[in-house]
């Protein structure tokens, strides 16, 4: 097993609003190994974005990390003061966001915004920083970078802006890149390009990636490991192969049934999961998915199940997997047809 870049243990993050405590993340654990891409998948409100913001300690008032540990390079980030985080953010851990149009400052050039990170974290002088910035732009696939470096964000197209954002994030060669829905706001063809770019750069710069998305299709292609979140908790964790072909949790199965699959012989209909996500101000006792789960039992509403391990790395939290649970015919969503061998 290669070394872990980041190891999150039992993270709990809440927002203390005047309406009450919104428990966005209720005890999530995961780790990312060197060179790995971890995909965090879930609906809106599942807590996936707040989890990633917590890793960077970017959760601002009225939110705060309630409990847990975030071990990064041997140190617990939760215990670190804000000032100490400044040298980590942008340098050791970087983040790119969903909408490149609004995530770039409109009144400064792209060059300014890249060089800012470089000069701050790497101490290069202006000339050297500019050289490096041009190199980054070239690396992310922006043509004529020596001219475009002086352009403003509104002079770039959507895809190019996202490339620029990636350039900014990777300019200091971070150990970990967190990509929060990087392709959601882009056209489908551009989406593919950006994902290719990320994979390519991951190897070139030797970065590990946490990819956050609600789109299983994006995840299938890029991720080594996947964590499925719902209602502030992890429902299932495993490798991409395991999640897509051997899902153990009803929610995962539900997600798989609701997307079209090219790798299976399609014979059935797409089945959406009925219902809406739970209210995080008064989260349900027990399993958060029980209200929408077709197999839910009385126990599911009372207590949250423990994680059942299938092998090193593949686990799921479901009462059906308990040794005493009744045998239930479960539609995993995989057996729709036969599996196509790619």
């Amino acid at each position, binding site marked *: 097993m290669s070394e872990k870049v980041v190891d999150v243990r039992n993270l709990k993050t809440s927002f203390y609003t005047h309406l009450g405590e919104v428990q966005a993340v209720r005890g999530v654990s995961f780790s990312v190994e060197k060179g790995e891409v971890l995909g965090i998948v879930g609906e809106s409100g599942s807590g996936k974005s707040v989890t990633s913001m917590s890793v960077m300690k970017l959760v601002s008032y009225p939110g705060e990390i309630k409990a847990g540990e975030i071990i990064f390079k041997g140190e617990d980030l939760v215990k670190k003061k804000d000032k100490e985080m400044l040298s980590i953010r942008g340098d050791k851990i970087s983040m790119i966001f969903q909408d490149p149009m609004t995530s770039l400052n409109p009144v400064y050039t792209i060059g300014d915004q890249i060089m800012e990170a470089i000069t701050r974290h790497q101490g290069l002088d202006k000339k050297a920083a500019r050289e490096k910035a041009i190199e980054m732009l070239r690396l992310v696939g922006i043509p004529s970078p020596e001219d475009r470096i002086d352009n403003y964000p509104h002079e770039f197209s959507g895809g190019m802006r996202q490339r620029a954002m990636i350039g900014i994030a990777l300019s200091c060669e971070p150990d970990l890149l967190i990509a929060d829905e990087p392709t959601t706001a882009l056209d489908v063809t551009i989406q593919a390009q950006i994902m290719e770019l990320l994979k390519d750069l991951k190897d070139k710069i030797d970065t590990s990636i946490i990819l956050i998305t609600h789109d299983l299709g994006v995840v299938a292609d890029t991720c080594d490991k996947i964590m499925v979140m719902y209602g502030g908790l992890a429902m299932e964790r495993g490798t991409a192969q395991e999640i897509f072909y051997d899902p153990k949790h009803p929610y995962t199965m539900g997600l798989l049934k609701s997307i079209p699959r090219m790798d299976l012989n399609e014979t059935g209909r797409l089945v959406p999961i009925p*219902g809406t996500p739970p209210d995080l101000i008064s989260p349900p006792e027990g399993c958060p998915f029980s209200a929408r789960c077709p197999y839910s*039992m009385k*126990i*599911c509403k009372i207590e949250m199940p423990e994680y059942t391990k299938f092998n090193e790395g593949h686990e799921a939290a479901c009462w059906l997997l308990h040794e005493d*649970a009744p045998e239930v015919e479960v539609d995993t969503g995989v057996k729709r047809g036969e599996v196509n061998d790619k």
Partner: protein
Amino acid sequence: MDNKKISPELWEKVETKASQTEKITRKSLTYWQDAWRRLKKNKLAMLGLSIVVLIILFALFGQHLTDWDYSSQTLKNANLPPSMDVYPVTEDKNVFVHREYTLFLVSEEGEIIERLEPTNGTLDIMQNKRRVYEVDGNEVELDFSFIAAAKSEGREAEKAFELKVNGALVETTESVWNKTYLLGTDDLGRDLLARVRFGATISLQIALVATLVQFFVGVFYGAISGYAGGSVDNVMMRIVDIVSTIPLLLYVILLMVVLGSGLSTIMLALGLVYWVRIARIVRGEVLSLKEQEFVMAAKTLGASTWRIISRHLVPNALGPIIVSLAMTIPSAIFTEAFLSFIGLGVPAPMASWGTLANDAVKALRSYPHQLMWPSLAISLTVLSFNFFGDGLRNALDPKLRR
């Protein structure tokens, strides 16, 4: 994996009534119902609205609060304050010493009975600085020669005047509210309450009519410009741009000089100049609305341009239009006050809050109450409209529905 024994009945399946979880839990409201609901919740806006309503009621029915008419003058009672420090003379009668050193007989409750005439000579301040009066058989003496005496000796006077009743010095016992003139009087002896009330009708009328003129000219100019688009829109907006670069007030002043001052010319001038603001807003709304699909739908059903503008575009743009109108009224009140200060207000004996304020400036040192009432009226009205307008803006923004 825990080894806790779980009782068998807990393994029973639960029927998920998934269809229930997506039930729409609120009944749907129309845009206007939703906006009104939101407006009601905004306490500040409702406060503003209530005050505005009160002011309107005051303007319409306030004349019953006072016995006086806005233009009747009682010169003897000029420049009386709303609250008086009185000196006791008899059981039920007091006197009040006016700033101009005349004496007024005041009843217990604070009613002005009459201005007393001295028994010993003229009212000429220069000649007679010691006056004697007779009240129900008592002798009242007012001596205000101190300041002149001190001046001639080059020192400060210790007091302004002395009042003696039957030879004994009296001090002021209390402050009473002026029950005859609740807000005091102006320099021609006119009741300020009646004048402020009248001023309310004038100022509000001006604001209302000006706003209506702006509405009709501005909305249709803007709607036509926005809907036509292209070069027609360009030219029309160019005109608006050129007109609005300069402080619009300058145009109003010029117009007033040409048209002469008077109630109707003020209303006209304000309306004919400020419509450009509404025109711009409406044009913006129409531009964004006309690209929307319901307009295309109307067109494919064969609706004429006029019908599209008046039945589809204007009602949908109504939100920002209403907000702008609500904000135009305070602006018109301000401008009218301003014009009065320059001498372009309504002619006497009519009064608007602006002319009342203008008249009161010269007496600011001696009789500050005369300026206070119209200023308060203006500020209160403008503030209330501002709160209400802000609330309206928040309520009518469909994106904010919670």
